[in-house]
């Protein structure tokens, strides 16, 4: 049997295993291709705390200098900090060195365009073509630009959040927060921000030394330590960041993970209470977000899956809040990026404004259950399967922009082929867990028939 490839070069960047497929030569070439693609100007770089970060960074710097770009090196910082600084420093682009939730042996490059947004699929394809052609801009020695070590980036990020949202309003006693940074890029700035907002912070896993205290994805099953700490310290809320600090999950005052789909719902509740405007999320987002938008009489727009699709639509609709159901909150007044720091500030403001525990806040919108499953399906069969489902559910409203989403009377389901594996993903949501499971079971039955 063929070895499982560990290198993934795609429109979302290049990702691989260090010591195996992610070699310095490959990284240098990608940096050259990116520099060649975006042209002369400054490139902002930042990395998460992975042990391979320094090697990857040096390879990337060599490539960017060779293609004539100036480098602004933020050191270790969250991905949204890189995106923010690209905009604030009016840079030509950015490279975030992080494999987000992948395990410790992985690393990756994510490419950011001049507005601080990730390259969209068209731009990424253009850059990949340059990479594969292998003809990169090479400047002479005297045109090689400088490397600026810029240490203050996370402070600027923190200050930007404070400037826009302000400190928490006075409450009878300070909001008590347990923060689990997963020893990730948010380990330093996370606690600092919460203190600056006026919260009482109990930090755990804030040693950014490249070790992973838990799997990096902030899924309920990975948050045991945080749940225990929230209960032990009688905290009002628990926050979990991932390795690159873009996604945020929440644990209630009872120590229960509320589900990463609801981070955006709570953030939107606060934003819409202060400012009405369009909300943007992807097709796979909980209906609770629609309910919240509706309660504030704000329109909601659902996009194809992918952060860049959401940010594109947010720009188009002049959205006031947006994001993804995986815990990614995008608040354009601060940053056009999934930003766990912004997410924490918004949710804490909501807590302080409402003066209610998280469990109570969750009752202010109908409760839903989401069930997600993967089914094995060869990629060449995906189109046939989707067509068949479309015919089967012809009587229901259907959205076919990304796979097929069917609105049922008691909920919805979304079926789409994976870009990375020979599977189709099924997501169903209904008022109760059993109803959601029934929907998935019905879909499976049709697929397997």
């Amino acid at each position, binding site marked *: 049997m063929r070895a499982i490839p560990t290198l993934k070069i795609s429109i979302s960047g290049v990702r691989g295993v260090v*010591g195996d497929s992610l070699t310095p030569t490959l990284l*240098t*070439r990608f940096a050259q291709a990116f520099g060649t693609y975006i042209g002369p100007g400054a490139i902002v770089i930042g990395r998460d705390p992975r*042990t391979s970060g320094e*090697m990857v960074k040096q*390879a990337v710097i060599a490539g960017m*200098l*060779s293609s004539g770009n100036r480098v602004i090196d933020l050191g270790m910082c969250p991905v949204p900090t890189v995106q923010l600084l690209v905009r604030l420093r009016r840079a030509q682009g950015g490279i975030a060195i992080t494999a987000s939730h992948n395990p410790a*042996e992985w690393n990756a490059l994510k490419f950011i365009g001049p507005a601080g947004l990730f390259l969209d699929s068209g731009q990424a394809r253009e850059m990949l073509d340059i990479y594969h052609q292998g003809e990169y801009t090479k400047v002479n*020695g005297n045109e090689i630009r400088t490397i600026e070590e810029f240490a203050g980036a996370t402070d600027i990020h923190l200050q930007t959040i404070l400037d826009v949202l302000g400190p928490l309003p006075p409450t009878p006693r300070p909001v008590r927060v347990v923060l689990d940074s997963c020893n990730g890029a948010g380990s330093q700035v996370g606690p600092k921000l919460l203190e600056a907002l006026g919260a009482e912070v109990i930090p755990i896993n804030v040693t950014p030394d490249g070790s992973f205290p838990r799997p990096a994805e902030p899924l309920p099953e990975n948050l045991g330590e945080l749940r225990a700490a929230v209960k032990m310290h009688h905290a009002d809320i628990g926050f979990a960041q991932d390795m690159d600090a873009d996604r945020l999950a929440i644990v209630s005052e009872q120590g229960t993970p509320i589900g990463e789909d609801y981070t955006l719902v709570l953030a939107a509740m606060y934003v819409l209470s202060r400012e009405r405007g369009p909300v943007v999320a992807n097709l796979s987002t909980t209906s609770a977000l629609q309910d919240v938008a509706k309660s504030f009489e704000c329109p909601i727009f659902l996009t194809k899956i992918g952060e860049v699709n959401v940010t594109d639509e947010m720009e188009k609709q002049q959205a006031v809040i947006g994001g993804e159901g995986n815990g990614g909150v995008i608040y354009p007044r601060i940053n056009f990026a999934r930003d766990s720091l912004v997410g924490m500030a918004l949710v804490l403001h909501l807590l302080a404004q409402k003066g209610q525990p998280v469990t109570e806040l969750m009752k202010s919108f109908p409760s839903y259950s989401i069930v997600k499953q993967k089914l094995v399906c060869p990629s060449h069969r995906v189109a046939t399967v989707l067509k068949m489902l479309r015919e089967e559910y012809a009587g229901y409203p259907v959205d076919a922009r990304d796979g097929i989403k069917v609105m049922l009377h008691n909920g919805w389901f979304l079926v789409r082929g994976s870009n990375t594996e020979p599977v189709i993903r099924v997501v169903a949501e209904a008022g109760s867990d059993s109803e959601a499971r029934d929907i998935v079971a019905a879909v499976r039955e049709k697929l397997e028939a």
Partner: protein
Amino acid sequence: MKPLKIGITGVRGIVGQTFTPELAVGFAQAFGTYLDGGRILICRDTRPSGPMIRSAVLAGLLSAGCEVVDLGVCPTPTMQLAIKWLEADGGIAITAGHNPWQWNALKFVRADGLYLNPRQAEELLDIFHQAEFTKATWDTITQTIQYRDPIEHHLDVLSQAFSSPTFVSQPQVVAVDCCNGACSLLSPRWLERLGCEVLVINNNPQAPFPHQPEPKPETMAQLCAVVKAGHADIGFAHDADGERLGIVTERGESLSEETTLMIAAEIRLRQQLGTIVTNISTTSAIEQIAARYSGAVVRTPVGQTYISEGMLEHNGVIGGEGSGGVTIPEVQLTHDSAAAIGLILQYLSRSGQRISDLVEQLPRLSVLKHNIAVEPNRLYSVLQEFRESVEGEALGYDNVDGVKVTLPGGWVHVRASNTESMIRIIVENEGAGGARQLLDWTLDRLRT
């Protein structure tokens, strides 16, 4: 054809053309693989491409599982000394020495502070070409260590070798041109420690090279002017990385780069009898100097690694090359221009002689050097054809490195450069006219 030279002296090319970051990454990976991880020092000269090559080298070394200590900008001999002191397993110097600013290169140093010898260099090249490098995994890969001020240690070693001179009259006034190279950080400090009054020019490592970083009379006009205006007792000119040294007398006369080794050898043999190690392209004045003191001369092929090996093998008291590189074993077995400065200044201050007095006492020979650019695909054929034509005339020759023909009153050496696609011709004769005739004789027999 574009200039790129991968050979026993490392890898050398023009940044923006042939010397790409991938090439630097690949060679660093190969070197890290060759040394099987371990502690590696890196340093660089002041070329504007230095930071780019440095990042590429760091990425390659870290990826190969090395522990990397970055000395920043410093002379190559400073790094070579630090290897032993910091107990490193090797080093990479990012410098193209005397080449113009457009160039850069990697030079590979082993655990004893000397360059890889030709056999080791070939082994490294095989690993590079095979391209199967050691790859550290996430739990073994490390971070770079920045080392501050490696120069202090170099100064300490130099001070031990040349105890502060006892001045016969007053402190010497020394002019020095650092060419805005790595010696900007070493040479003024060394001269001050020696108690000299220092007139320094071109000591800004951020600025471009003010002239070619190759100390020879053509590049020393500014230094001559400073020596005269400042009434200096001597002037010294550095290359970019602290190996070659040029000298200007107190009269403001720039000396040929061939004279540097002659001066150093004359001083050394006056102090200590023994063997001089030099290459076959260097002036035969060296034999004449050795003869005065009944010393011996060992001739090697051209290249610093051969001088170092010759010094080791023959226990030489001094080594060097006609290019201005001098090796003084009390400091280290590799060219070190700061060591040469120490030797010369110590002698001048103790003897009370002027540098021009010493030059007066040297043998007078006329040397002519001539380079011919040759397409890389013809370089060794041109040499072979010259050898055949010499054989055809039934002349005796030495082929240790290229072709060296000894003729009545002088000699001719024709060889391929180690660093550029060039044929280098050196002729020497007792008179200037004779040297010119020898050069013409040679050019007649070279078909490029």
